């Protein structure tokens, strides 16, 4: 079946611009997670959704980062006024409750 998909696969943007990253989870998966994979920081948790609500936003690095999920399905991670330190691979994962998380291929963001 279809796995988790993310778009775009690569995004190059200029410092100061806003970007939107999209995640399509596996159908029926109620939980959705965003992580960031960067050279200096490894894999970091950003935010978690259960349905359309986000009980845990503790990993968002600043108020420039926000995320939403609609219809219990697609999620969008938005980064406003991008900075060079935002360059990373952004990973999305979905799961049924606390079971195995299935990861997407990631979006590689480069801020120039």
């Amino acid at each position, binding site marked *: 079946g279809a*796995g988790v998909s993310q778009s775009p696969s690569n995004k190059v943007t200029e410092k100061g611009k806003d970007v939107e990253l999209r995640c399509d989870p596996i159908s029926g998966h109620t*939980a959705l*997670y965003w*992580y960031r994979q960067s050279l200096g920081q*490894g*894999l*970091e*948790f950003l935010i*978690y959704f*259960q349905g359309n609500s986000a*009980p*845990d936003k503790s*990993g968002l690095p600043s108020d420039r980062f926000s995320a939403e999920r609609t219809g219990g399905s697609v999620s969008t991670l938005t980064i406003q006024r991008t900075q060079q330190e935002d360059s990373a691979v952004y*990973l999305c*994962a979905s*799961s049924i*409750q*606390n*079971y*195995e*998380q*299935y*990861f*997407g*291929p*990631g979006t590689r963001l480069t801020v120039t």
Partner: protein
Amino acid sequence: AQRVTQPEKLLSVFKGAPVELKCNYSYSGSPELFWYVQYSRQRLQLLLRHISRESIKGFTADLNKGETSFHLKKPFAQEEDSAMYYCALSPFNQGGKLIFGQGTELSVKP
């Protein structure tokens, strides 16, 4: 503080040799622990979780609460085991979010 430490960035062994990837954690409670693996040009995927006590692809990991460790072991490494390995902790009742270690790159040479 909740933290996962993988002390080795790179581990290089020869085919057929035993391999042990180290993982230590810091957590004030009973953690749920995992090993995830990322093969070249593939997605991050679950290798094993401690509660299932399985052996996957010949790998095993035992939770040692006294030493707060969850080392990953395989008696005879294969070239196809070359990958990036991440140890992860899921805190109790926090929605299943994962706290990852920095990862260890395993290189198995022929």
